[in-house]
């Protein structure tokens, strides 16, 4: 029975959730996005024909091998790169550069090392000219939300990786953006901290009116977090498929062994690593002698 379960089989609850989600207003619309880079080797097409709609309060993950253009995509959304063609609308407004409506969390924490954690969180509102008094009290609330209220006076170098990334999330949220762009934010963390951070992120997402666009190359992370997963094909980066995750919410890490989770994961594996089989080295035919003196076979 488990084997026959497809990732497309959604339980009535999940199906109802998706219907509700799709009825929500469109927050992010990407149409005809095309991006090429000029390099010494000539032109490289990084993204081609990207069309995508993300609804309000949706959690979307982007999955793909390295070089599939996922970082380019999120940098275009953030306004840090300009597309060669196509356009991006956030809340109906075209993206022309970095802006306060799109918060970004980078893999390399990018906290300002000369500011305390609280001052880091206050940075965005300060740039917008918010008064220091309201800014301070709000910053404390954001830090409480990510569980860093005790460290508001610490400097970033005194924090662990997970704490730094929570501070970075608080800093991005303090600007009250419409969408939170996260570029492999947990990629540098160890597995335990990573799972913790995923749980934290879902908690935050539940409590804050925010849409999340999340880049990862970790299948478990993508399935655990998202409503829908955008799978990109590499070179040039194109949309392979948009997978609706059938795992019901609220999520916890026990669900990693649930049939829906496993079915989704096996499907993602087939579409993400189709070329891997012939890339494997054939160990039996290696042009070298046995490199051990032990005669007993290990198998």
């Amino acid at each position, binding site marked *: 029975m488990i084997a026959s379960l497809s990732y497309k089989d959604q339980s009535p609850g999940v199906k109802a959730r998706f219907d509700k989600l799709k009825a929500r207003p469109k927050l992010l619309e990407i149409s005809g996005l095309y991006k090429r880079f000029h390099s010494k080797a000539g032109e490289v097409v990084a993204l081609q024909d990207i069309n995508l709609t993300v609804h309000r309060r949706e959690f979307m993950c982007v999955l793909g091998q390295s070089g599939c253009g996922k970082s380019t995509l999120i940098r275009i959304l*953030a306004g840090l790169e300009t597309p060669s063609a196509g356009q991006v609308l956030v809340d109906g407004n075209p993206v022309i550069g970095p802006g*306060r409506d799109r918060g970004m969390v980078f893999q390399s924490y990018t906290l*300002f090392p*000369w*500011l305390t954690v609280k001052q880091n969180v206050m940075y965005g509102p300060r740039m917008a000219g918010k008064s220091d008094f309201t800014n301070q009290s709000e910053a404390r609330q954001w830090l409480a939300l990510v569980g860093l209220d005790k*460290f508001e006076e610490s400097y970033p*170098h005194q924090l662990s990786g997970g704490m730094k990334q929570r501070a970075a999330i608080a800093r*991005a949220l303090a600007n009250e953006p419409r969408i939170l762009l996260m570029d492999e934010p947990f990629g540098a963390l160890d597995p335990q901290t990573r799972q*913790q951070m995923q749980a934290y992120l879902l908690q935050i997402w539940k409590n804050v009116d925010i849409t999340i666009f999340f880049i990862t190359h970790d299948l478990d992370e993508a399935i655990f977090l998202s409503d829908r997963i955008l799978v990109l094909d590499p070179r040039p980066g194109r949309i392979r498929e948009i997978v609706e995750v059938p795992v019901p919410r609220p999520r916890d890490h026990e669900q990693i062994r649930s049939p829906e989770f496993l079915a989704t994961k096996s499907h993602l594996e087939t579409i993400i690593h189709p070329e891997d089989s012939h890339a494997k080295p054939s160990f039996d035919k290696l042009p070298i002698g046995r490199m051990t003196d032990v005669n007993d076979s290990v198998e």
Partner: protein
Amino acid sequence: MVRKDLDHTRSSLMMALSFVLPLVIWAIASYGPWWKVARQISLSAESPRLQSVYSVGDRLTPNIWKDFTTTIAQDNREIMAARESGQPTAGSARQNKKILRQIHPLAIANSWLTREQEIDDEAIRKTWLQVAAGELKAKKQPLSTENLAIIKSNAEMLAKAGTEYPKETLLKLLPESIEEVSRPVYLVPPDVVAVSFWKGITAGKPEEGDANAERKSLLQRYGESWRTIVLGFLLAILVAIPIGVLAGTFDLVSKLVEPFVNFFSYMPAPAFGVVLMAIFGLDLGPKIMLVFLGTLPSAILTISKTTRGLDGSLLEAAQTLGANQRQLITTVVLPGILPNLYKDLRLLFGTAWTWLVIAELLGFKSGLAEIIDTHGRRFQFDIVYPAILLIGLSGFFMDQILAYLARYFFPWVDQPKQGFFGRFFSARSRILGPSSPPAAATTLDSP
């Protein structure tokens, strides 16, 4: 071991040794047995038992000197013995006059007598009596206590004899000498340099009317040097920081400024010395401008490089948080480069000392370089070395103090304790207990 850090005690020991070793080498080179020791006579005597006559200024080997002094002492002992036995050795007036004339070189040195009074026996006799009475004090070339006793004893006899000379022989003054080591003139031993250094920094203003009244003391010269270097350096960084930061931030400025600055930095600043004198005169102007000119190009280049080295993702993060171009510079670039900029300035200040020495020789010489140049030309290296040492110490301690202060200026930088002061204070705080670590460099783990 390859790339293994030493423990605290050992590394402190090594750091101390790195200073002690050169000192030891210097001391060995100076005091080693390979330099001939000679005794230069400053007060001579004659004896029939000696085969030769030694006069003031002669250099004797230590052995001959020993023979010389013991012989004269022996002569005196015999005279005393004869006197005590009641049959004093007879002495003609001529002999006694000769003995009395012994004091003449000393009297010249102390300016009691003139050079021409060598055989003016009345004046010499008066000198003896005055020295014995304490009316004349040997200030410039002091007398040994033994010789003072001999003078008193002879003066007594002279007084007794009235205007005549005593009939018995007088005591001879014991020879005196100055030890001389025949080191090369540039090898000044550590103790001489230390004494000269101490004299230099403790000397007050020269007295009015003194021959050296025109000369400034070491400390005054030192003050001049500081004024020149600080003004020149401040001027240079005042210009270099804005240009460097802009060049590191905007490619346009970088391309516009850096190629020429790079070219300019290859033209040695001292080469412009004459031009600077033509423009700014001979006083403080050209000196400050040379330090300025020497520091400026490398300051611009290093500061722009430091600015470019700022993590670009911080700028991107700030942009996504809504910072505009101006805010990017004031709230990200400037605070972001500050610790490294501080480090750059420390290094640049160190090199500014190099320019200082050349700068101070432009026009009217001033500062420590004046001392080095003037006294160096006269081979007075015991005065030259303290001045050089002062430059080294100033540069070194300035750098160390600034490095130590960095942890207070930039508490957000997770830096290891470095340098002498860092070690010193960390060792002290460990002994005194947890007083107040400036930056608790502890990593807090997530709950």
